[in-house]
Structure formats: structure tokens, C-alpha cells
């Protein structure tokens, strides 16, 4: 088994053993029904007492063949409203950047927690989309309104 697959098996095991409350992460299934460990769908709950609360935001995580030497690519749906998310949905986060803070020891749990942290703490040094970035820096009430609107779109009823 390749290093990538071995590590992903381990990540899956660790995730099932212990994952933060409110998050989910599942590898997708290939057409033959087998699990494709290189592509995961996951959900990031907005932190309580923030604009992002009461919603679970879907992300897609794609692991390259070189993982864990190279980081996975993490994407929200296209058009996701956040200053550090590109129009395509790709998340701009230093721990997901090979040339910045990515380390092979970073776990899936740390990645999703990092994304959750980013939601309410945008990085002012990495603007990735114009609308959210502009509103965040210049028109905070518009920004908050749009984030709340988006939170309603991804709202979840308490269901365990």
C-alpha cells in the first residue's frame, strides 16, 4: 500500500476514534461502491456565538498522491462567501499551503479545526475573493448580513 493510502487509512481510523463534535468527514464512494480515500466530503460547524453558528458548511477534501508530503486541497462550494475563499471555493489557509505551514504531521482533525477557526477569523493578508474581502474590510454590516444569510442557507436543526 502506498504511503498516501496508509496514512489516509490511519486518518480515517483516528477520525472515527475521535473527532470534534458537530463535524463529519467521509471518504466518497467510487462507482463500484468502494471507498475512495483520496476524496472526502466533510462538514464544518460554525463556532457558537459567532456569525457562523447554527450551520454546518460543506467542504470537499482532495488528497494528492504525494500526501502527506503535499497538503490536501480543501474547497467549499463555489461562490462560498468568505474573504479567504477563492471564487472556485478553494480555501486559502497557511496550513494547507505546501510553501507555508503545511507539515506532514498535520491531521485531518487539525485541518477541519483550522478551517473552522478561519471562518470567524479571516486572514487579512490573504484576500481570495473580492466581494467578501471588500465587505469585510470596508462595510462590516454588509459582511455580517451576508454571512448570516449564508449561515441560514447551511442551517441545521439539532439532530445529533
Amino acid at each position: 500500500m502506498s504511503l498516501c493510502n496508509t496514512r489516509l487509512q490511519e486518518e480515517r481510523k483516528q477520525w472515527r476514534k475521535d473527532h470534534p463534535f458537530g463535524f463529519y468527514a467521509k471518504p466518497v464512494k467510487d462507482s463500484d461502491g468502494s471507498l475512495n480515500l483520496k476524496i472526502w466530503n466533510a462538514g464544518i460547524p460554525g463556532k457558537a456565538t459567532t456569525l457562523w453558528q447554527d450551520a454546518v458548511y460543506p467542504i470537499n477534501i482532495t488528497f494528492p498522491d504525494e500526501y502527506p508530503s503535499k497538503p490536501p486541497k480543501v474547497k467549499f462550494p463555489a461562490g462560498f462567501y468568505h474573504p479567504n475563499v477563492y471564487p472556485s471555493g478553494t480555501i486559502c489557509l497557511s496550513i494547507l499551503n505546501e510553501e507555508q505551514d503545511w507539515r506532514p504531521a498535520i491531521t485531518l482533525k487539525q485541518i477541519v479545526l483550522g478551517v473552522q477557526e478561519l471562518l470567524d477569523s479571516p486572514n487579512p493578508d490573504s484576500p481570495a475573493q473580492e466581494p467578501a474581502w471588500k465587505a469585510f474590510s470596508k462595510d462590516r454590516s454588509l459582511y455580517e448580513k451576508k454571512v448570516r444569510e449564508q449561515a441560514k442557507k447551511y442551517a441545521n436543526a439539532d439532530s445529533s
Partner: protein
Amino acid sequence: MNNDWNIETVVSSIELVYSTNDTDKIKQVQEYLQSIQKSSTGYQLGQVLIKQPSKYCRYFGALTFTVFLNTYQDSITSDQITSIFDELLDYVISLSQESLESNLFIIKKLLSTLSLLFIDHNQTGIDNDVLINPIQRYFYKLGNPNIIISELNDSQLKLLIYFHTIIVEDIRKRDNSKLSQTHEIIYKYLFPNLKHIFGLLDSNQHQQQEIHELALDCLFAWFTYIGIAEHGSKVSYTVDPQILQPLIQYTFYNLKFDDLENRIAIVSKTCTVLSQILEEHPLILNPYKTLLAQILFEENSFGSKFLHAILSNKDLIDIYQQEIENFTDLIIAYLNLNLVYIIRNLTNPQVLRILDIAVTLTNFPGRPIEDEKLSDQFLVFWEEFINMFIEDTDVINEIFKEDTVSKQKYFEIRNEILINISIIYWKKCHIFSDKIVPEFRHYRSKVAEVFQLLYSLLNTSIYSTLCKNVIDTLVAFQNTPNQELSLDIEASLFLLFKVTDDLTFYDDESTQILIPYLEEIFQHKVIETIDENFKNNQINITLLNLLSSLPFFFKSRSGEQYITTTFNYLFSIIIEQQQQPQKQQTGVSLISSKTILKICQNSRSKLTQFLPQLENIVVEMIRNIEFDSLIRERLVNSFMSIAQSLKDPLKLGEVVIHLLNQINQQIELVVHNPNQLLTSPDSTKEENDQKMEDYTVSLLGCINEIGNATKLPEELEDYLTVEQKYQTESYWNEDTLGVKQAILQSINQLSLNYPPLSLKTLPTEKCCNIFKCGLNEPINGPFKFELAIIFQYLMVKVQNCNSGSMSLVYKLVESIIITNGKHVSIPIFESFLSSAFLNKLTFIEQDVDLIKSSLDLFSTVLEKHPSLIVNLPSFQNVVLKFAISSFKFKESYIIRSVIKFWNTLITLKRGQSSEQQLIQDLIVKEHIIDPSHPLGYSLVLSLITSFIDNPRSNTEYFYQLFRVLVAKYPLYIKNWLRVILIHKLVDNSTNDKFNNAFVDTFVSKLMLTRGQRQANDVLKSFWLDCNNLVEYKS
């Protein structure tokens, strides 16, 4: 730092820290104490304090030694270190002789300081053995360097165990890459002592219980350390099981049931140590596997006696909660390690006995999380257990290849265990309190994951069992309603939801098999029963969640008959929420609206009979300001999705104009009589204004949703017949009901003429989105406007709008150019350019975002339809100057846009030959920016200046433009670059490195690349040289 201290003042300060509650005072005193601890007389202070009668002062003295040694570690000589070590050891012995128990916290701190000295200095080549073998020094201090451990008294033995524990615990906090020699010294000098200690404890049953507990803590620390040592050095503790034999034997010795009440702490700690060994160093337990299984699982063994004792005495469960959890961890660690064997030997009576114990612990009495944690601890194991059956299918089939009888028996046993587990967890996940704590929600979620896996293994059998349970319980509840039955229903519905949701998460096909089972539940009136009997209850939320996962069911022939009931239920939730807005309920109504939307979009053609009913609801929502905006807009989309499926433009037109008229009526009220809409007398003006703004934007959002829902599908030929297509086109060409006019009326009214909104971004966004709805429509439709009308709106809008709106206007024009560029006339675009750019230039130049937006628009026009812009006088006179001046920014997003603009202009892929010639002339001939040089020179000057001045992270953006210029205008670039660089670097720099040769070399290297990829490296190297930096590649 403060060298000047007086012991009386210091003592009273220390006493104050431990006696006052005044945090400011404490902070002030601590600052003082820290300054003298770090002073050059800190060590002397420690010496004085350690001899004080006050224990606080003594502790503070021990702490002061650590602070001092950390502060001056580089200036202390090896002789000093030896004498400090000896002195601190003397204090330890003296304090322990006085009273080990009451001085323990001081002694531990001193031992930690000794450990610090050992770790920091054992590798420095000191020629005595004090720091290489600190334990030997301890024995020496006790008066006999050759003393054997069995001769130590209890106090001395405890001290020895503490010392061995603290050293390895402290090492764990250090950087392991620098500890190779330390690990070897520990293995050589400390580990043998450990073997003697445990050999002694194992053979001497009369030791104090406390010593055994300390010893087990020490073992835990060592088994954690062993992994670190093996990873950080060449030492190996685990390669030969005999090396650790005395330590492991000691743990087994402790697993005894006798005198459990008094020895429970020892048993508990032993379980923790063994769990740790099983998880981290399983190989070293290989020789003891059978013995461990006997101790844990055989009849009359420690394990079965322990289990029997706790299960037969409820008091013990309460008292020994932690100890039982530790025992369970050990069982689980054993099971995990032997999982493959267990799975493949399921018919073996010994294995069945082991599993029986696992099932018993899983079914431990009490409510999960609140009373017991064992079922939670076991969840991961059972997941692995089920998973292993899935992964091991081929091997199991191979084992029973020719023995169908045994195979059948095997699967019977497997299924029996799995059903047992599912029943246990089904019961455990019942709600037992109105207020569900997050931990229990998490637990339920994990239980659901076990059921999802069970479905993978057992397929519909588990699903049908849950459905049957719902049906049976529903029938019983309908006859005799009671709380217990409702909780049964809730638990089953919850698990059905989670399993269904998991299946829909992956694909739609796998859910088809569920339809008959779901139909049975609906036949037994699940919605009606819950709706009639429960309000604002978890069971409603659970049912709602289940419904939200069932659009595939409602799309089916079996499911469509239940849509009426479902809709009634979902709408009632939304309406109730509107009447009683609560935080919890908002989430519920949002899920309801999302479910309605999904059902309508999936099954639109089957829902046309609901149009009149839905229309009433939607109209009410448009009229009522209190409804949530997103819910209102979703329901408009739901309604219009059904209307669109009629494929009848006449009916669609009637429905659309009806809604638009309602919306326009509301807009009239907003503009002329807003008080009629506001129903809360207690709200402040600000609140009312905000509410009104949200409502008004939502009205525009509703129009946008009408547009989204009435969009034609991409495969138009498959959707409409030729005749329908013709009818649709003709109908909307005439638009006899004035739909388009009504849409424009709403847009103009709110976005242009209503002062509270005209300077806001959101209404502009909604209006732009409304116009976008029709841009891609293949034939005429309600939202397909003439481009001149859209441009007319935009040109008026830019006269009265904020910066955020300007960006949206530019984005809409970009969309128009991309989708309908060939229908845009040059005069229209020129008018727009004049209104939205030339007349606004001062405003735009003050806003970096608008600079970027306008550059992006120009790039899109140049890329898609350059003829719209390149011949305009304003392009040459203003736009090009604007694009040159934008090089001055260092924001990466502007740099990217500037570079894209120039790249697109120079390549001009879609331009006609006359336009390409025009651009070439502009670049090499026309003196647009600088009266003495052509545009190309000015461009290269700005480009190279910006390139050198930008940060390294932006440099890559520039490469492509350099390459395009080199490839397209090699001779010009060579000359321009040379002249510019000699002027810029050689003539105006004091650095000798920048001479003519430097410039020539760079220009030659760049030109040699002919604009190929190698140019990137040449440019990167040039940038590094110019900024006096080097490549940091490792």
C-alpha cells in the same frame, strides 16, 4: 534584575502570595520575586529559602534554583554543576528524612531541578559520574554507593521511584532530536535500577500499597518514554521481550481479585499501564498473550470476578466508575489487538466468551454519558468489528469454502452478535431528558455511525427492522399513547434518518431499495401521529430531518401520494415558527423550507395540483414582513419551479405577473406607507428601518428566485417540443401581460428611486442577479431583457451608487460581455464606459477594489470582444494610462489584474488583424504616456520597476508578461530594458554590483529564453540580485 534583597522582605512577600486574594498585589509581588530569582544572587536566595521553616518558602527556594539554573545555564562551570547537584541532593535527603509526606511537593520540585541538571549536562563530557549516573550519587549520599535496592527503607525507595519517574517525564518535554546520548545513558545506568525495583516489588508482597501505586505511575511514565527513546536513539527496550520481563511480570502480579476493595487503585493503575502497553508496544506482550487472556476472560479469573462483582453491586458501580472505565479500556485494547483472530474464529467457544464479556460491558446499566461511559468507550471497537467483517469477507469465504454448514453457523453467530449490539445501542440512544446535552448528541451521532456501518454489512435487514419497529410502535402508540413508545419511535426515526442521509450522501441509486420500507411507515401515518401528538418536541425535529433526506422517496410513484401530508406538515412548521419566533425554531423552519424546495425541484412536474394552494401561501409570505427572507425566497422558488414545469408560457406568464404584482404592491407600501407593514409597536426606529430594509431586499430576492426557477434547462431540445419552443418564444416576444415591465418597475423603484436603498450594496446585487437570470437563456423568456435596457439601468445606477455597487455593475457587464458580447454595440459600450468609468475616474482611483474591478472588466472585453474598446479614443487616452499607473500598487490582487490586462492586450487573441496592428503600433510607435518614448517603453519601465519593488510572493505574477513581451517584441524589449536598467540600476545606484555588465548579462539571458519557461528562473535570479537576497531552497 534585582541583586538587592532582604530575606525578611522576601519571606513576607512569599507568604503574601499564598495568603492574599488581591490579584494586583500578587502580580506586583510576583514581579519582584521573579526579578530577584533571576538576579546573580538567585542561587544564594534559594539556599536561604530552602532552609526556612515555612514550607512555602522552601518550595519557593526549590523553584528559585530552577529559575537560576535556567537563567545562567551557559555560564555555570562543570565543577559548579557537580557541586550544585550534590547540594540539591543533600536537601532532598534531608527534607525526606524530616518528612517525605509533608515535604513531598518541595522534594518533587528539587528532583525536577536535579533532572534538569542531568538532562542538560550529561552529554557535556564532565569527567565524573555524578551527572551520568545520578542514582549512584544518591546511593553514595545515603552513605553506601554499593547499597542494594532491597536494603532501602520505604522512604528511600519511594524517593528512588519518584526520581526515576520525574526524569523520564521531564525528558518527554524536550526536543527528542538532541537526546540520543541521554537515552543511551538512561538505558545503561537508570534502567537497570528500574529492573531491580520491580523485581523487588514483585517478590515482596509486604510493601506498602502506596509504593505499588507510585511504582505503577513510574511504569506508565517509562512505557511512554520507551517509545520516545527508541525513536530518538539506537537503544532498544522492546526488541527482546526478556528485557522488560520484570516490569511486565509485575503488572500481571497486580491483577488479583483478592482484597479488591483495598487494592482497587492498584488494579486500576495496572489496567491503565497494560492498556498503554497493548496500544503502544503490543509486541512485547506476545509471550504473555495467553496469560493475559486467562486473567481477563476465563471463568473464575480476575476479569470475570471483577465484572461479576461490579454488576452485582450497584454501589460499586458508583464508587468505582473510573476504575471500571480503566478495566474496560484494557479489555478493548486486548480486543483491538486480537480483532482479526476474533473475526475469523467466531465459532470458537473461547472467542464467544470474550465477546460475551464485551457485549456485557457495552450493555452496562445506566444512561450513557450521564451514568455510564462504557458503551461510549466500546463504540469505536464495534465499528472496527463491523468494518473487519466487511474487509475480511474474502478470507471468511475462503475459510468456509467447502463447508456450507459451518459457514451458515458462522453467519448465524455473527448476525446474532450484531443484532445484539444494535438492540443495545438502539436502547442506549433513547432520549432521556428534555434538554439534550451536547455530549449525548455526540454519542447518538457515533451510534448512528455504527448503524450506517451495519447497513453496509447487513443491507436492508437492519433498515427493515428499524422500520418495522417504527410501525409496531406507531400502532401501539395510536392505541395507547405513552411517553415510552414515543421515545422508541424517536430513536428508530433518528437512526433511519442517519442511515438514509448517509446513503443519499453518496448517490441516489442506492436509496431506491429503501422506498418500500419507507412507504410502509407513511402508510401507518407517521406524520399524522407525530403532528397530532407532539409539538415542539425532539421527535418533530427528528421526523423533519428524516423528511429532509427523502426527496428521492417523494419523487417515486410510491412516495408522491404522501406529498400532501408532508407539505401540510412542513408548512405548518414554518407558519408556527413565524407566529412564535424562537432561535431553535428558526433552524427547524429553515430545514422545512429547504425540504420543500428540494421536493419541488426534484418532483416539479408531479406537483402541479399544489399550485393554487402553494400560491396562497407564497402570496401571504410576500405580504408578511415577519417571515424569514430566505424561507420566503425558497418558497417562491419552490412555487415557480412547479409553475415552470407546466411548459405553458400563458399559464407561466399569469403566475409570474400575479406574483410580480403582489411584489410591486408591497413595494408601493414600503415606499409610501411603510407603517402599514410594521406590526411590532415596541420596536425602535432603527430596528424598524433594518427590518424594512431586509424585507425590501427580500422582495428583490423573490424576483431573483422567480428568475432562477424559470430558467430553461441546458438541453432545451429534450425539454420543449418544437411547437412549445415556438409558443414560448412568441409569447415572450409579445409579453402581453407586461412581465418584463413589471420586473423593471420593481428594480427601478427600489434600486434607483428609493433613497434608503439606492446607496446600499445588497439591493444592487439582487438587481444585477435578476438581470443575470436571463443572460444565458437560449430563447426569449420573462427575464431575457434587451441589452440596451440593462445598460440603460446600469448607466443610471452608477450615477448614484456606492463603491460596492460599482464593482457589481462591472461584474454584470463582464457577464454580459462573456455571454452576449457579440450583441453589444460599440456606441452602447462607449456610453457605458463614459458614464461608469471616465466620469467616475477620480472616485475609482481612490478605491483599490474598484481599480481591480475596472481592470478585470477591461481584460474581459479585450479577451472576448476587443473591437468594443480598442478603437475608442478614451481607451488610448485614459484606459491605457490608468493601466500603466496601476503598476504602482503592491497588493497581489491588483498586480494580478494589471498583469492580466497587459497580457491580454498584447496577445489580443480574438482581435482582428487591424486591431492587432493597432496594438502593435501603440506599443512600439505611439508616445501615449511619455512624449519621448513609445507606450512599450513606458510599459517596460513600469513593469520592471514594479517587479523589482514587489515582494517575493508577488514575483511569479510578473513572469508571464515579461515572457509575452520578449516573445512578441524581442528587439524592442532588449533595447528598452537595457536603457531603463542602466538608468535605474547603474546610474542611480551606489552598489558596484549593478554595472553595465550586470545589466547586459541579465538582458542577454532573458532574450536567450525567447520567452520560454526558462525566463522564470532568469527573472527570479534577477529579482534576488536586485533585492540583495539569496534563494532559500534547502
